């Protein structure tokens, strides 16, 4: 009998936690969510303008275009060997360039392998995703040698096209 009594007492204590759990709170849950957009856009460019050049004198100029991004990027120069070529009354005028990307418009930090590449895909510059959104500048510094400028007067103009692809 004593054994039965102890067994029953034990069963009673086992039963008590079940009762307690039946009285606990009921729960439900919902999800909260957000998606962070990709930031990837060019800003307003600063033209590379040699200005009025004295025939027979050299000239330099710098131009840039800002790109805001929060993902990686592949820069390329789709015009290849024609990148930044000037055309005017005397025909074509090809400045020499240094080019690349910097955190300001003044200094190139990461350079293209070539600013006037042999093919449209020959010169690419790949930069990794930043830790957050940033604005960087694609910079072209141009030089006209003195021997190039002793030509027919007039306006010589061209285009530097840069393609940025999210990566």
């Amino acid at each position, binding site marked *: 009998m004593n054994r039965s009594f102890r067994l029953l007492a034990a069963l009673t204590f086992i039963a008590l936690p079940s009762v307690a759990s039946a*009285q606990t709170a009921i729960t439900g849950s919902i999800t909260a969510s957000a*998606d962070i957009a990709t930031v990837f856009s060019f800003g307003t460019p600063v033209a590379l303008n040699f200005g009025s050049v004295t025939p027979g004198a050299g000239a330099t100029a710098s131009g840039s275009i800002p790109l805001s991004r929060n993902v990686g990027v592949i820069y390329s120069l789709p015009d290849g060997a024609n990148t930044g070529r000037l055309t005017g009354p005397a025909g074509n005028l090809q400045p020499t360039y240094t080019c690349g990307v910097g955190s300001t418009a003044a200094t190139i930090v990461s350079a293209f392998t070539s600013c006037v590449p042999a093919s449209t895909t020959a010169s690419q510059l790949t930069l990794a995703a930043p830790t957050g959104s940033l604005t960087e500048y694609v910079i072209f510094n141009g030089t006209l040698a003195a021997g190039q400028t002793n030509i027919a007067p007039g306006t010589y103009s061209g285009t530097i096209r840069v393609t940025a692809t999210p990566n």
Partner: protein
Amino acid sequence: MTPRTGLALLFALILASWPTLAAAQGNSKGTVSISPVQNLAFGLLFPGRREAVPTTDVSRRAVVALAGSGPIDVTLVLPTALETPTGDRIPLSFSSSDAALLTTSGATLKQLDPLQVNRVQLGNDRTMLLVLGGTAATSANTRTGHYTARVTILVNHPGT
């Protein structure tokens, strides 16, 4: 007390407690239900912005249906941030006016404070809607991605 008397007394106590237990179970489990209807969706955000979803924003606020009878205490376990699987975070904040209790037709019954325990009176198995808003604050360094968090709703009958 003889063993036989003690055993009989114990049986009597257990039998006497059963109806109470049944009522308690029926009251807490049988008459209240929580049904998630709509998640809290901040949508597409840009880095460096603060985005608030008010309780009146029908397309983005969270909605949970509560059904049952009697008074209940509703507690929300609120996340402090949305996160990506890789651990990037967007801090979340909730104000005292970021929750409300609505009828199923959308009329506001009561403003709720999601930061406190809220006593709600359910009436005759009618369904009520608990809605929740909040604010997400991205920084310029917030990376692209899908961020999530979980909001848990606890419902207690007062006194249990």
